[in-house]
């Protein structure tokens, strides 16, 4: 599903040039659950941004489902993102002014899904992440674990092929963290490809394969299953 080859990303300011990704290459197959690990500043987040089409690489190739997307313009990237990718963040990133239901409904709205169908699909996914009883609450009224469950619901409601998770348990205690990891595992088992950046060895063990990064490129790959 994902094939990146010789990917490079350099951040330049007036004085410093920081190499974030350096000749990075790897693949992720459809249905895989991959964890990306490494120390702070090794390029994990940059990689995730590029995979999520939030940022573009300076050089190299990025094939998504066989399509070269590295040189896509903003509009094409947005379209590709909308149709294929779901995001889960460490800080949940729910919109404070929208209720749980409305937060989850948002991607469907942007995708132009009809109201009746939206309601059915949101209810179904809220049921799945067991947050249905809080559907009319606002994010501030929920615990961190509950907020992350809503964020996962929002990421999957559009049935994306790929979920990108950026330290999804970073702001959660262990029991809530385990719950979220179990949800991701369930999603993966149902066929969704997952790429997750994490610092936690414990979380990484939920994945099939761990890519370890240092200074912008991969150093090792551990296959867990």
């Amino acid at each position, binding site marked *: 599903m994902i094939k990146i080859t010789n990917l490079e990303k350099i951040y330049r300011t007036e004085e410093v040039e920081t190499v974030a990704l350096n000749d990075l290459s790897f693949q992720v197959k459809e249905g895989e659950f991959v964890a990306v690990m490494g120390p702070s500043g090794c390029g994990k*987040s940059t990689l995730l941004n590029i995979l999520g089409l*939030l940022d573009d690489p300076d050089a190299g190739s990025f094939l998504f489902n066989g399509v070269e997307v590295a040189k896509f313009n903003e509009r094409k990237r*947005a379209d590709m*993102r909308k149709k294929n990718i779901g*995001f889960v*963040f460490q800080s949940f990133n729910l*919109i404070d*002014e*929208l209720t749980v239901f*409305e937060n989850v409904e948002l991607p469907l709205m942007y995708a132009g899904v009809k109201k009746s169908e939206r309601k059915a699909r949101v209810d179904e996914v809220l049921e799945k992440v067991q947050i249905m009883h809080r559907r009319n609450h606002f994010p501030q009224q929920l615990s961190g674990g509950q907020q992350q469950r809503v964020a996962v619901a929002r990421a999957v409601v559009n049935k994306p092929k790929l979920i990108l998770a950026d330290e999804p348990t970073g702001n959660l205690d262990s029991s809530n963290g385990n719950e979220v990891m179990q949800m991701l595992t369930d999603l993966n088992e149902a066929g969704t490809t997952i790429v997750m950046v994490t610092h936690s060895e414990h979380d990484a063990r939920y994945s099939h394969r761990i890519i370890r990064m240092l200074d912008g490129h991969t150093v090792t790959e551990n296959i867990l299953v």
Partner: protein
Amino acid sequence: MIRNYLKTAWRQFKKNKLTTGISVTALVLGFSTVMVLAAMVYQFKTADSQFAHRDNMYYLRSVPKEGGLGGMQTTYPLLGEIVKTCPQVVAASHYQQWYQPWLKNGQHEIQDNTTAFVDTAFLKVFPFPLKYGNRESALAGKFSIVLSEENAEKLFGNENPLGKTIAADDTTLLTVTGVLQHIPGNTSIKPGVLLTTAFLEDSPGFKDNVNWYNGFAVNYLRIRPGTDMMALETAINKIVRLNYSKERQWEQVIIRPFSRHFADNADEVGKSVVTGSLGTILFILTILVVNLINLNAGNLYRRAKEVAVKKIVGGSKRGIIVQFFTENLLVVFVSLALAVLFSYFLLVPFINSTFGARFGDMEFSLNRDYPLVLLFLLLAFVIAAIVAVLPAIRMLSLKISDAVKGKIVSGGGRTAYVRNIFITLQFLLSVIIIYVAIILARQLNYMKAGSLGFNKGDVAVVDLDLAFKDPKTASSRFNVILNKLRNHADVKSFSVNRFIPTAYGYNTNAFVDRSAQKEVWMFQGGADAGYFQTYDIPVSEGRPFDNSAADSIETRNVIINKAAEKAFGWTNAVGRQIIPKSGGPSYTIIGVTNDFVFQNFPGKVEPLIHYYTGKQALEGAAFLSLNIAKGKAQPVLSMLEKEFKEMPGKRAFNYDFISDRVSKQYQMLDSILKMTQYAGFITIFIAAIGMLGLITILLRLKVKEIGVRKILGGSVAGIATLLSKSFLVMVMIASVVSVPLASLIMGAWLQHFTYRITISWWMFLGGALMTLLVALITVGTQTIKAAMANPVKSLRSE
């Protein structure tokens, strides 16, 4: 989707109560002021536009040799000659305001000072809609009378008065042949009563004045479309050359489009109100827009994450811009609605009470004023678009990956730079208005305090134009009263006259000094023996008029002022002879008064001549002026009131003091001052609350910085100063930069005045300090509050 936008907008407002409140308050205050000013300007610009064939309507002006616009008066016979000889003129009418007869129907009696005598074709020239009557025949009969809707109601209540009779001055019976519909406030001519010139031409006082020399006729014409105006004007001036008396043959009569009438007749002050209003509108709108952009930009940084998330889950740029636009449009429209209420109930009554007399009362009619309504709706859209789209576009250009991680928290760098320019601009405009208000106030006070050349304090003025029911008895009673006054210990002097300072009118005539062949135009007035003494006007050369001299001799004597003496080029005018250019015997100058302001307050003193009005008597007099010993005015006036009861009139005994009449002369300028002060207050208030909102937003973003500084040992005063400094510097820059701009504006404005203040540095210092104080209070309270917060708490909240 729209419902979703509205819902989000509503939740945003609830969350940002302070900034929403500030935006709405600023918009309501700003919009209401702009609306009223715009309506006033619109009313001025669309004056007389209700006449369908306005483009074919014209009026005549007589232009003097020196050029310019001249006056509206021509000789009376001219129009008749034009109608007779120029087939291009479809219809024409005089519009003579000569006198105002009392009109009586049973118990109801009125006198209207807008009474006009017009020709049969008047309603063809001015197609005023009639409530009752036939426009073709309404003014055909000599004894016809057409009333305004308001006057018809005063005389006849709600019934149709067509065919009913009215007694004019208890002597002549007139038949009501028409009732005009209500005439909009911004119409040049608003007759309350229309009588016929046929009727006027029969009155002896009028007939004597009708000739080819006297110029008092006002003429309106309707001309066939497509007429060669140059040819028509030539034809008219041929009539002038052929008929006008020798002294006036140099006069050029021009045909002015009626569309120019309102503006032609607005004076400099009126025009400067229009220019000033347009300037103020522009200033206020700029401040409002800048204010909203700043608040929006400040808030958008808090919303960076929301925007990023929306983009990640599939939101388009357009959708996000539309969302911000909807939010702003909602704020702008709610404010617009509130502003309508605010201006309708508070500002319009204020404006009507201050400017109404000059501009016509402000009236609203959707039928006529819809372009203004559309303009405001469009304005609301444009403002919402500017203030939403600019910050939104900036927001959308931020990196999603940074925004979503909260890496963008404050608008530093270029954004801060732009924001600072905006804040400075906002204060710059406010400070200019404050400076203008200060200089305006100084000039007005200077003019009011300045010497007018006569005693404006203690002279009581009793109105003698009371329409006495028995003039003969009244006249002899009045002589008894005058004798009492002559012997009254507390009455220092008195004058019985048709003229008093403030009420000279615009009656001018040319006089010739035969010996030097020099000609001078002078304003004409009259005086009795007590006039100059009563008003403490020094007769610096020669003597005042003498009551004991024989009238036949004294009426050949005149008194001029210094300005006239100077215009003739004399050093001592006493004993010199002058003759009116229009002919007649010569007059001997027996005295020269010091210059005093008699008309055109507070303008330049023009050359002025006084004739002798003869022995003091009621006939021909309009005012009884009394110079009474200090503190004794009341008993004297009470005595007079009792005496006047013996000579009943249609109007009740009434008096005022010359100081009140002088104050009234300044009413227009006072109104301008009030408006400017209000605008100054509004703009500085909007700028200040805008800054309050912005600083609150920015301080929220700096909570961490403040906490860290405190932990590292920063004092409250130190931190507050650090946070306030940049804002105060901006206000200071604005105060300095605006000085030359304000000087330029006010320097030009002051040129309108003969006696004017010089603009000096302390006027600016006062304004600058006031603005700085407002800024200091606004910024200071917020920064001190932020600096005093517990650092542990603030760091935890980060």
